[in-house]
């Protein structure tokens, strides 16, 4: 078995109010970053997983997101990277 580091991004679903993201957008606008159209603030989870291959590690991470790490009602997730450790 190899070890892989799978990184997952989880963000509030677009269209749902993200008050933290909105506060940051407003602050960025106040600082002159007028080009910022939307900010969403979520979580970045780093998983060290034993698996046969990178693909198997990602499938496992996906199952973890579906079952626990992300709330399917309010959040979207995306696997950001998978590297050997």
């Amino acid at each position, binding site marked *: 078995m190899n070890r892989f580091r799978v990184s997952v991004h989880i963000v*509030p679903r677009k269209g*749902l*109010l993200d*008050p*933290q993201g909105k*506060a940051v957008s407003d602050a960025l606008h106040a600082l002159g970053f007028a080009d910022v159209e939307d900010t969403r603030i979520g979580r970045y989870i780093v998983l060290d997983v034993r698996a046969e291959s990178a693909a198997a590690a990602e499938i496992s991470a996906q199952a973890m997101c579906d079952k*626990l*790490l992300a*709330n399917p*009602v*309010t959040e979207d997730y995306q696997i950001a990277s998978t590297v050997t450790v």
Partner: protein
Amino acid sequence: MKFGIVTFPGSNCDTDAIHAVTDQLGQTAFALWHRDHDTQGCDVLILPGGFAYGDALRAGAIARFSPIMQEVIAHAERGAPVIGICNGFQVLCESHLLPGALMRNAGLKFVCDWVHLRVEGSAPMYLNGYQQGQVLRLPIAHGEGRFAADDDTLDQLEQNGQVVFRYCDASGNVTDASNPNGAMRGIAGITNAAGNVIGMMPHPERAVEALLGSTDGLPLFESLLARVGA
């Protein structure tokens, strides 16, 4: 009637619920631990307020996998009463016993206050002691109480009479100003389709004696006693 009050690590309203059930309602309360596999024959299960597992990841997300939750789910599927208050409501949503989710308050702050609620919907098990449209005054104390669901789910909840409490002003008008957390459509409490599982952010168990400011929570429990039997 036997009430089982579940304590998760981080629950902090379990004693309030036991007090309401025993001292105010004169019923029997059993303290159930999150690791228990047995609900000791309780007729009603209450998931109380607090911060189960420190709200790690999301409020209610970890509590959902406690051994006792398997029993709570089985109890609910038999059509028996389950009440989730505040953090308990979050646990019921994470467990998929109730639809939707509870997100961070729109104002980003923890809100500890009294609110007005309008009674509606059709859940006789819990609402028989109230009039439709009656305005209640109950306390809230939460940081993640913004009810959210997709439009289809919200429409379905309303059509089925599963929305039982909405935040309102003292006259019963549902307005943005009377919504303490930005909950969609002002929703403060819902039931499942069968009407035996109820989840609500406000605290009826803290509004059962005049000395503490309100008795508006009492009819919810009394409805249950009348329905399920004392």
